[in-house]
Every structure is written in structure tokens, then in C-alpha cells.
């Protein structure tokens, strides 16, 4: 039996604007201070996505100081459905929304993946490791990688060696409160998962999914 878990990959993502919307402020958007684990997963999946693997983010290192920018845009308030002409610029369908986003972000994401129950006999971890490495090196993606919202494109590249990564250290420890972790799709309905996030030494440590699920269960039945 070969390994179930890959080695740890490190990916650098940066861009001029990023908005990792908080669920409570997603209409008039306000971003989290730091990239969320699910946004980081999105970046990894834009490089390599297969049903046979599941990404687990371990850490997000923040390399650029946290800066904000706010702007207003005209957006639509209707949902897409077969009957609607989506981009019709009709005043009834328009609504102005504000966005408080992050400016000039730069992150290094550390993550590994594990085989899922969808993995076939040929899907060994080594194969995907090499695929990911190759694709990242060449800049190949399944979809344009983005920072929280599709319109905020990310430049993705292999991270520099660990000793060259210098996260921000304005405060030794900064509590970020409960942060969105990811959605749990396994059961009926979609369950949002949250974790208690702390930025220490400019690094956001991301607990493994099992820990978050355990914590979540404990919160329900103390």
C-alpha cells in the first residue's frame, strides 16, 4: 500500500486586490484580514483538481502588510435562471454594493493532499505530486486562480525557499476571531465550518479538517 498523504507543497499567490468576504458582511462586502483556508484550497485546486485527492491547507503566511481599500460597484441583485437575460443593464436589476477589500496581498500557502474514496487503483499519491509540481512550475491552471472573488485574479507561482519567506510581524499575536473554514458537503445540506483563527508571527495556522469537525461537535454538545 502506497502513501495516502502527499508531501507538503508551498505556493505563492499575490495580487493587487483580494476580498475574502466574511459571511456576515457578504452583501456589502468586508474581507477577512487574511486569506481563508477555503480560498487557499481554491488556489490549489485551480492548479490541480481531481476527485481522487482532497487538499488540506496547513498554513497561510502573510508576506505583505494588511491594507484595505474600499470601492463601490454596480452589481446585479437577481439570481441567474433560464429565463433571465443576465447582463441586461436594467435599473430594476441593478444594485450598488460596497466592497472593503484587501490591497496588494502576498501569501505563501502550505498544503498537502490525501487520497479520497474516489481514488482508483492507478491513482497513487506520487503521480499527483508530480502533476502538481509540473503544472505549478509551468503556470498551468484549470481555471484562473483568484483571491476570494473571481474578479480579483491571483498570480500563482512556486514559493521561494522557506528561509527567504519573511512574514509580517507587526504584532506578535493577533486574534482574528472565528474564521470560515470550509463547507461540509458530506451530509444532507451544506454545513459551514468555522475555526478560531490567530495570526501569530504573520502566519495563520490552519487546523486539519478532523480537528475542526471535532471542535464543531464539541460546541454543539458540551
Amino acid at each position, binding site marked *: 500500500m502506497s502513501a495516502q498523504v502527499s508531501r507538503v507543497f508551498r505556493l505563492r499567490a499575490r495580487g493587487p486586490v483580494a476580498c475574502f468576504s*466574511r*459571511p*456576515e*458582511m*457578504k*452583501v*456589502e462586502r*468586508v474581507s477577512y*484580514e487574511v486569506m481563508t483556508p477555503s480560498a487557499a484550497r481554491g488556489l490549489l485546486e485551480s492548479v490541480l483538481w481531481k476527485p481522487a485527492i482532497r487538499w488540506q491547507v496547513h498554513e497561510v503566511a502573510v508576506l505583505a502588510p494588511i491594507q*484595505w481599500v*474600499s470601492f463601490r460597484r454596480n*452589481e*446585479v*441583485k*437577481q*439570481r441567474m435562471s433560464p429565463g433571465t437575460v443576465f447582463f441586461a443593464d436594467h435599473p430594476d436589476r441593478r*444594485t*450598488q*454594493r*460596497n466592497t*472593503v477589500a484587501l490591497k496588494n496581498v502576498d501569501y505563501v500557502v502550505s498544503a498537502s493532499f490525501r487520497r479520497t474514496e474516489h481514488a482508483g487503483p492507478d491513482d497513487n499519491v506520487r503521480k499527483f505530486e508530480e502533476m502538481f509540481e509540473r503544472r505549478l512550475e509551468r503556470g498551468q491552471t484549470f481555471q484562473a486562480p483568484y483571491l476570494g472573488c473571481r474578479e480579483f485574479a491571483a498570480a500563482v507561482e512556486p514559493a521561494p525557499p522557506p528561509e527567504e519567506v519573511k512574514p509580517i510581524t507587526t*504584532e506578535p499575536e493577533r486574534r*482574528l*476571531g*472565528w474564521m*470560515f473554514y470550509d*463547507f461540509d458537503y458530506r451530509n444532507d445540506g*451544506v454545513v*459551514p*465550518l*468555522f475555526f*478560531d483563527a490567530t495570526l501569530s508571527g504573520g502566519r495563520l495556522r490552519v487546523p486539519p479538517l478532523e480537528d475542526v469537525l471535532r*471542535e*464543531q461537535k464539541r*460546541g*454543539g454538545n458540551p
Partner: protein
Amino acid sequence: MIIGALYEYALREGLLEDPDVEPLAVDFFLEVADDGRFLALVPTSDEEGRVPRRAVPRKPQRSGTAIVAGFFVDNAKYVLGHGGDEAKARLHPERNAAFRALVDATAKETQDPAARAVAAFLGRLDSELPRILNQRAEWTGEERLAFRWSGDDALLVHERLALRDAWRRRRSAKQEDEGPLMQCLVTGRWEPVARLHPLIKRLPNAQPQGSPLVSFNEDAFCSHGLDQGYNAPVSRSVAEGYGTALNYMLSSDGERRHRRGVALGKDAVAVFWTREAEQAVDVLLALLDAPATQQEGSSPPGVRQALHFAEAPLRGLEPAVFDYKPFYALVLGGNTARVVVREWFESSVRDLKQSLREWFDDLRLDGGKGRPLSLWGLLRSVELRGRDGTPPELASRLLAAVMMNRPLPRELLAAALRRLRVPDKDDAPGFQLYARCALIKATLLRLRRLSPQLPEVSVALDPNSPEVSYQLGRLFAVLERLQFVALGDVDASIKERYFGAAMANPGIVMPRLVRLSTHHLAKAGRERAGRLDRVIGQIMSQFPAEVWPNTLTLESQGLFAVGYYHQREDLFKKAAPAEPATAES
């Protein structure tokens, strides 16, 4: 984090002592006898028409036209089924019935004599109503009424122990069967989740009855088929807490429009708080606030206090090692049915103190006579007359620059210069000029941090400055003075006619003014204008007309203005004993 920090504030300030009641203004006490007879309608307002707040059972959240009755306290539409215009009266019987049903049920449940008296009153309301309505000329329907029972002098009906218990039971039962349990994204605990969030009042461009900070009022805003507040699970207690905190900060406290906030332009309000009580926030509020009486030239006492604070190094804003308490600033605006977070700042008290000190330092300009400047005053001084005022983005960017010690927006420089070009028509031109030039100086100083090749700006007159634009500004001040000495007060002085042009295109305009000055010099005579002539000579010998640039950049124009201001102050300073009567203009 915003919601969490607000919730913490509510806990700290003790705004949530009892989750079942909230302080609200009650306009009238309705006194009833045992048998439900109407006895009196007692207004609660004092001589000045102020209505005191009173702890009442927490008001139900009503969305749209939904009918939900309050517990023994509500507005006239519910209590009497009356008030407002005809169009809105259609639902009154239903409202009154809902209110009555709740009272009846409670009376039956508690067998409290006061509750039964109220129930009896509501039973015979039809016959009593004319007498009650006569007590008041016009009923808007918004008057909040509470009951008093003739058998109890001390407490209002809803304050009686039996009814308080009944309310608590009812609320907790309701919380359990309403709304699913979800993991709250503020506390992390599994709790009943708020479907609708509290309304935030007193925000510009929001609805008069308030708009929620957290809302999902269009299809496109919801995810995963979730409804309203379930899109963002926030527990009910947290929702109530942050709502109470925000409404408290935004409420007026008599002297100020907002207790813990200031209006930024016409469509935004900034509120500030720290995790622990902290004086620096009061300083910031004082610094920002508009004076209650709009007397320009004299600064509000609050700002004076703030400056005093900042200049007393050991007492006031000296950052201390233990000052790592977080400091929060939130800029809110309205977008009709929603509240918009325009800006969100999180830093520490330490950094705030540091920033405030640097701000006062950067703003310092000779000749201010210790007149401190509030941000509000600064913004006012660069506004163009008859326009909409300063754009809110500019106000909040200025605020951000002050709080976070960042460079000031270049637009401020442009605005100040634009305003300087327009002849003064305001009440205190001397003060306005000071405010504008102080702002220009601060802007230039901070821009210099970004691009060090920009020239230095001094606090006081610097006769040896190598900057030609600064020297030209000085020259202009001297020429203006010379004209005044020669001709006295003229209708349109060279300041009024040429300042803008000279600032933008000195190479073209200044030589003409210098030629003109020979006439002024001749008229004034050597004796009175000799000193001015010497200054002109000093500047011209170092910077002959051949080196005067035809156009100046925005930054150089700023230097021109500062040079003008410095020289002008200097002339006044020295001339003051000899010519005490000259007006500042």
C-alpha cells in the same frame, strides 16, 4: 471581527444587563382602574419636551407589514388601534387584536391583577377610546404607551415581577422553537441563530426606522438556498448585543450628535471604540468633532483639550508599553435597506497615540497662535462654497491618514489649493488661510515620506530655502503688503486678482507684479516701505526672474502657498507694534 468587537463592547459597557428588556423612550403612561376603566393619560416628557427612557420588554422585530405585538408596551397603533393617516389604518384592528391576545393570554397565565386590569381595559376599549383620544390633539400612531394600574403606584404594569417572569418564559420558549441551532461565527458555540438582525438607526442614507448591518435582502445575496440570517449564522444574543452597542454609539447624548462617533461629510459616520475604556478615544472624538456652535476662528473647547493632551508628553498621548489594547474604527453609511461598512480599521491604542502626536506635529505651522484645528474645521476650510461639501471618501481617507499615520490623499492638497485660488469671502479669512496652509504643509510633509525627492517644508519662515516656489510665495506676500502700504485697502488687491495665477504660472505673472510694485514703492516712499524693498531685493538677488518657472506642479504650488503664509505671518509679526490697526486680510 467587527461584530465580535462590537459585542465585546456591549458586554463591557454593560449594555446587555438584561437580555429581555431594552431602554426605550416611553411617551405616555396609560392609567387604568381594576375594572379596566380608563383613568388618565400621563405624558412623561419634561418641560423641554424630552422623553426619558425606561426599561421595557424588548421590542419585537417587525419586518415590513408583519404584525407582531409588543409585551404590554407598544405604540398607539397596537395599544389603541389608532393613529397615523387613513391609508395605514387598515391593519389597525388586526394590530390591536394581536396586542390584546398577548395581554389576555398573559393575564390568564399569571392571574396578575394588573394584567387582568389591562385585559379588561382592552375588552372595553371601544367605549373608552373617544375619551383617550380627546387627551391629545393628534395621534401619529408612533407614541409609545405603557400601562399603569391604579392598584400599584410604584411599578408600571410590565415591570411587575409576575409579568417580568412571564415575559422571560415567553421569550426563552420562543427562542427555542424559532430558528435552527447553528455554530455562531462570533462565539463558535451552537446557539439559536438570528434570522433577522437588529436595525441600526441614525445613519445617513438608511431608512428612518433603521437598516440592518447584516441582511440578505435580495435573491442574489443568498447562498446554498439559505434564507436571510442563516446565510451567516450569528447567535441571537450576539446579534442583539452588537445592535445595542452600535445603536448606543450612534445615539445622541444631548451635546453631541453621536455619542461615540462623528459624521464624515454627508453620508458616512465613523464610530470608535477600544477593547478597554481609553482616554485616547475621547481625544480622537474631540479632535474630529464639529463644534456645536459654528463659530469659525474660535476652536471648540474639545479640540483645545485634545491638543493640550497631545502636547503634555508624559500625561497624555505618550505611548506606553502596555498600550497594546486594540483600537477599532468603523465607518458606516447607509444604502437604503442596508448598512454599508465603508471602512474598518483595527490598530492598537499605542499606535493611535503615536499617530495623533505625529498628526499634531505635522500640522504645526508658525503663527497659529495656538489655535488647534479640528478635522471638521480643516475639511470645512477646503470646501468650495455652494457645493455639496467634501466628498465622504475624502473625509474618511483623511481620518484614516490621521489615525493610521499614513500619507494624506493628494486630493486634499488639490482641494486646499483650489480653495486658496478663490478670493476669501468667509468670516475669518485669517483663520481659514491658516487652516488651509497647515493642511497643505501636513500633506507635503507626508507625501515627502513616500517620495523623498520632494522638498522639505518648515514650520516657520525659512528665508534661505533653496526652493524657488517657496521663495516666490514669500515674494508674493511682500508685494501684497507693499500694495497695502502704498494704497491702503483697495477693492481688488493683487492677492484677490493674481494669487491663483501667480501660484500656477509664476514665470508669467510674477514679473508683471514686480514691475507694478515699483509704482507702489514710489507711492509708499522709502521710509514706510524700505524694509519690504529689502526683502524683495533679497529674494530677487538669489532667484532672478530668469529662473522662475512658467508652471508649478501641485506640490510646488503647495510650497508657494506655505511660503506666502510664512512671509505674511512674519510681516505681521514685525509690523504689529508699528501698525496695530491693520486688519488680517
